[in-house]
């Protein structure tokens, strides 16, 4: 499967949040790096079809992002997402399973399986409002995965996770990346180094670098710091990467 973004732009008034971004993603894990306000979240929301681009298009093997067929392939964890305080953790995941079209039996099986995977099976009957931030984040991850998505988009998925949970999450994502397209954004460069097969970097709404990171190029963190330094432009970034 190929996830294709073709000259995607999003403009708010006079400001451009995402500026003519194009890329193609295949099965595997891609990390999206960028400073605050770089346009990562806007780009991801357009990829999920939640936000209409000002111009450009998104499709997966020719299926447009605005279609139900596209949404059937999708799993999405937004940054700083909300929850239904009156739902239990099990209800929360089951609700999204139903929204994603799973029948009741499959939804129940997948829910129990995923709650086990994210370490929440002991808290399945607890109300969402009683959970800690990290537990809510794990419940969010479970809802994103419940339909076994072919395209998984995760916006800051490791925020709020403790080191142990982060290791478990990396393992889970790597496993899913073997059969699905996974795009995740983060500020934590080491997460990208550990999980991502490919890296994309955004700055001021533009995709300034993308490719497979090779450890022989040096530390990704150093490269990232150079890329997002005060005067770093596209050429600086390529130079920094020795490209």
């Amino acid at each position: 499967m190929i996830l294709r973004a073709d000259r995607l732009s999003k403009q708010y008034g006079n400001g451009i949040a995402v500026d003519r971004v194009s890329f193609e993603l295949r099965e595997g894990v891609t990390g999206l790096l960028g400073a605050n306000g770089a346009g990562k979240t806007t780009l991801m929301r357009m990829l999920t079809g939640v936000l209409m681009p000002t111009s450009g298009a998104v499709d997966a093997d020719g299926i447009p992002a605005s279609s139900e067929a596209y949404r059937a392939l999708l799993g999405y964890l937004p940054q700083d997402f909300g929850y239904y305080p009156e739902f239990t953790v099990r209800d929360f995941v089951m609700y999204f399973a139903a929204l994603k079209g799973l029948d009741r039996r499959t939804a129940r099986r997948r829910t129990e399986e995923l709650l086990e995977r994210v370490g929440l099976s002991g808290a399945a009957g607890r109300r969402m409002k009683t959970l800690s931030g990290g537990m809510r984040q794990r419940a969010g991850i479970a809802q994103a995965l419940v339909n076994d998505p072919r395209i998984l988009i995760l916006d800051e998925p490791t925020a709020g996770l403790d080191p142990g949970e982060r290791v478990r999450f990396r393992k889970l994502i790597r496993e899913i990346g073997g059969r699905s397209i996974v795009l995740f954004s983060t500020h934590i460069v080491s997460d990208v180094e550990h999980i991502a097969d490919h890296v994309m970097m955004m700055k001021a709404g533009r995709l300034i670098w993308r490719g497979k990171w090779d450890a022989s190029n040096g530390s990704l963190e150093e490269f990232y710091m150079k890329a997002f330094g005060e005067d770093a432009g596209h050429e600086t970034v390529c130079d920094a990467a020795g490209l």
Partner: protein
Amino acid sequence: MRRFATLLGFELKKIARGRGTLASLALCAALLFGLTMLQYLDVRSDGRYARAMAGRRVDDGFVAEVAEAAARAGGLAAVPADSPYYHAARWMDRMLGSSMSIPGVTRSLPPDKLTAGALYAARDGIMDDLYGFFRLREDEKAWWAARERNIERPYIWVDSRAAAGMKANFSAVTALLCLLAGVCLAGTFADERRRRTDAMVLCARHGRRMLWRVKLCAGELWALVAGAALLAAAQLPHILINGLRGLDGAWQLVVPFSAYPHDIGTMLLMYLGLYGLICLLTGAVVMALSAWLQNTMAVTGVVGALVMADLFISVPPRLRALSQLRYLTPVQIMVNSAMADPRLVVLFGRFMTPLQIAALAYPLATLALFWLAGKGYGRMR
């Protein structure tokens, strides 16, 4: 279908477990129950007499007995609650226009001049005044006159206390239902944004068209259930205390200045049906506002303002179209227990009464609001 039912269960859970939903419903039901019970604590009349007189013709003999009691008490309105003629005297007092809010239509008839003929003539005169007040055209008057001819005279007295109480309660129940829906359904669409669950929902396979339908269905189900609970709380005391008798009596024993030629039971059923449509309309209004305003507090505020406007704004009948529309609003159409709005609307070449127009307009408005809610939900992207 099964998926729809599953989602419906979750959406109902969201509404029912929403902050204060069940507490507000219980509070409103208790309030209505209490208000109804207070009416009985205020005036304790002996229902045996009302029942004992049932089946008698409201003719000269009947009127003379009541007039005698009125003469002893010093007027129809002064007949004491423990008198056998208390209920009949109160009804005859209303037949003379005592409960009319329109100035100049009341007829003054001393007890010694009170006969069946005078009573019916007074009613006819008041009806003419009302037709003038509402600026009825000659063809409208003729239409009502034809209906009036189908009402058998003299009326047969029935014990209509429960029915009268129920009719009078419909407006309070409707107003409270609107306010309650404004609180409990305000978050139907708006809460998805407030809770920041909108992105997850909108990118799910069934998060758009199907969820829109499910949410509307859940909201309407809730409105019907809450409406039924409020209605039961308000009406059950009347039925339990007075018994549901006299349903075959003339509607004019409940609403004196109505020309509807139906019995009490039929008219109560019509009001019940209309109330059901109002429940659906109210739910649709609140949910459409929720989808468009995307702010729970704003929705509750707007609904509150609409209910206040429905209760208190008046439009003079000389602005015929506007005033007629005004009388078609949910609370207003239920309000008046002394008279019925006699203005007619020509549709498909025939006259239609306000109740018929409401029965047609409310479902159409509900469907239009569903569509508007869908448009508002689409704007969330």
